[in-house]
């Protein structure tokens, strides 16, 4: 990887190669974060009747204090935390189980099943949510129509179920993607190791538990981090379901929806503060998760 005979003139050339990316990166990643962080330090003050134009004043903690006292925002954070705690393990459990099943010697039609699981990934999140909104809607639900003869009906938009209806859409979209990543890690296990275990009389379950799952630990950690980050940015699915949910999905259902409604209400600094809080929380949670799962092995 290191060049023995690298001429010293390569430095400026390399910067030239990186320049288009770095310039745009600065413009659309770094500048907006700085802009948001700075503008979050100002608060918008309106006169009681809203008849005069709102004024801005420098009040560094104002928006942050307000956010932590804003029940809608804090409960959106709690809701998404609960979502992540349940949905991520369930989805990764499904993905791991599918990867192990497809990898097992008893599986037939491996190519087909891998593709079937992976196909929802090709459907944009918003389109997936649209399709599922028809699956859920009382007027159109083919699921409930199939369940009708059994006398069952699932109220997908009921207050206590709607979070899990959203979780199902996310699981549908991403379980197969994660399965492919875990499956690829399974393929990297040397055949001799598995053969040796079999010779020793280990059952398929034992091999899966003691060899295969430890071997895909790195892939599981990685998919978990990406899924946790994905949960924090939950937006598309609930935003699409919201207008058809008959009110059980609030306009501040997730932190991003909450920040967006602050934008819609014209309070940009408050929206900026919410974005900054969310970005910091995501950073802290992924960092802690990496530290907790890192046992000093090279990934």
């Amino acid at each position, binding site marked *: 990887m290191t*060049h023995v005979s690298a001429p010293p003139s390569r430095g400026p*050339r390399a910067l030239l*190669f*990186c320049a*288009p*990316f770095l310039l*745009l*990166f600065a413009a659309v990643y770094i500048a*907006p974060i700085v*802009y*948001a962080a700075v503008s979050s330090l100002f608060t918008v003050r309106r006169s009681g009747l809203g008849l005069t134009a709102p004024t801005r004043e420098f009040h560094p903690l104002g928006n942050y204090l307000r956010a932590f006292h804003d029940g809608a925002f804090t409960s959106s954070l709690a809701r998404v935390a609960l979502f992540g705690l349940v949905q991520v393990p369930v989805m990764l459990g*499904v993905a791991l189980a*599918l990867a192990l*099943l497809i990898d097992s*010697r*008893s*599986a*037939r039609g491996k190519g087909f*099943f891998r*593709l*079937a699981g*992976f*196909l*929802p990934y*090709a*459907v*944009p999140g*918003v*389109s*997936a949510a649209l399709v599922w*909104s*028809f699956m859920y809607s009382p007027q*159109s639900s*083919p699921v409930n*129509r199939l369940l009708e003869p059994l006398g069952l009906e699932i109220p997908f938009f009921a207050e206590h179920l709607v979070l899990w209806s959203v979780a199902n859409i996310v699981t*549908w979209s991403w379980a197969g*993607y994660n399965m492919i*990543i875990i499956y*690829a*890690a399974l393929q990297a296990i040397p*055949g001799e190791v*598995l*053969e040796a275990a079999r010779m020793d009389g280990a059952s398929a379950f034992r091999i899966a538990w003691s060899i295969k799952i430890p071997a895909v630990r790195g*892939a599981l950690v*990685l998919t978990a981090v990406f899924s946790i*980050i*994905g949960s924090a*940015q939950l*937006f*598309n699915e609930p*935003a699409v379901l919201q*207008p*058809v949910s008959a009110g059980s999905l609030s306009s501040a259902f997730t932190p*991003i929806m909450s920040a*967006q409604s602050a*934008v819609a209400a014209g309070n940009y600094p408050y929206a900026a503060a919410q*974005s900054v809080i969310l*970005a910091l929380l*995501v950073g802290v949670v992924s960092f802690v998760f990496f530290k907790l799962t890192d046992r000093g092995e090279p*990934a």
Partner: protein
Amino acid sequence: MTTLHDTRTPPAIRTHSATRPAIRSRRDTSAVSRVTVTALLALSAFYFLAPLWWLLVSATKPFGEQFSGNGLWFDGFALFDNIGRLSSQDGGIFWRWMLNSVLYCGTGALLGTAFSALAGYALAKFDFPGRSAVFALVLAAVLVPKVLFTLPLYLMFSGIHLIDNPLAVLLPSVVSPFGVYLARVFAAQSVPDEVLEAGRIDGAGEFRIFRAIGVRMMLPALVTIFLFQFVEIWNNYLLPAMVLGDDRLQPVTVGLVGWNASHVAVPPALVVIGSLVSVAPLLIAFLALQRFWRAGMTAGAVK
């Protein structure tokens, strides 16, 4: 970090029959285990495919009957009539949305792939001060999702009056940290240093070497990066939904969600048909180009 990829192809690209051939003899699995495994896999396939199948079936039913009858079987074929109705709603705006989507995604992915290739190649093949800092920046940006930047972007764009301007969608779309990451991995594994040295000895400039050797050798990888970015832009709903209020500028995802939210003005059946029409090209491209997807995913996954 890249050791797995420097020496051999990512595992998922290898064809299945080529892996562990000796152990793959199927005689020693019991019938019970085969039936159980197949049944579980079939159940999963039903879960993953049924909504897409429903979409296909419903879009072909006569207009207005999208939600009646058995959702999982055909009932009269009226797909073309339905597409006709889709085309005439709101003065044919659906096709305008499709065109917008293709333009945003195509331009964004093309420029983004070029910029990613340049940066990734430089990170893999040049020694320069700040190289590890640039790479750390790229990795951090891969880990922090774009959506978190969207609201700050909107606030900034409205501060500089760039709302309702296609540039507000295009500029952020062109930047792909994941693309740079992939380009670096692929350049490290597919462009040998010796070939570059040979080019240098022949007196070719670095950019010429990149174009003539680097790009050619990285071409399959660049297709992968293009696909990932195309779909990422197509998937990004929040950004265009926020910065494009004018519905004639919107991409198809934003347009369809707008229709869906206005159930009174637009029949829900049109949303179903529009969803099929907008998703079908992606599914077909996806099926046709599978190996590129898996190359990108596994390269992105093993870190």
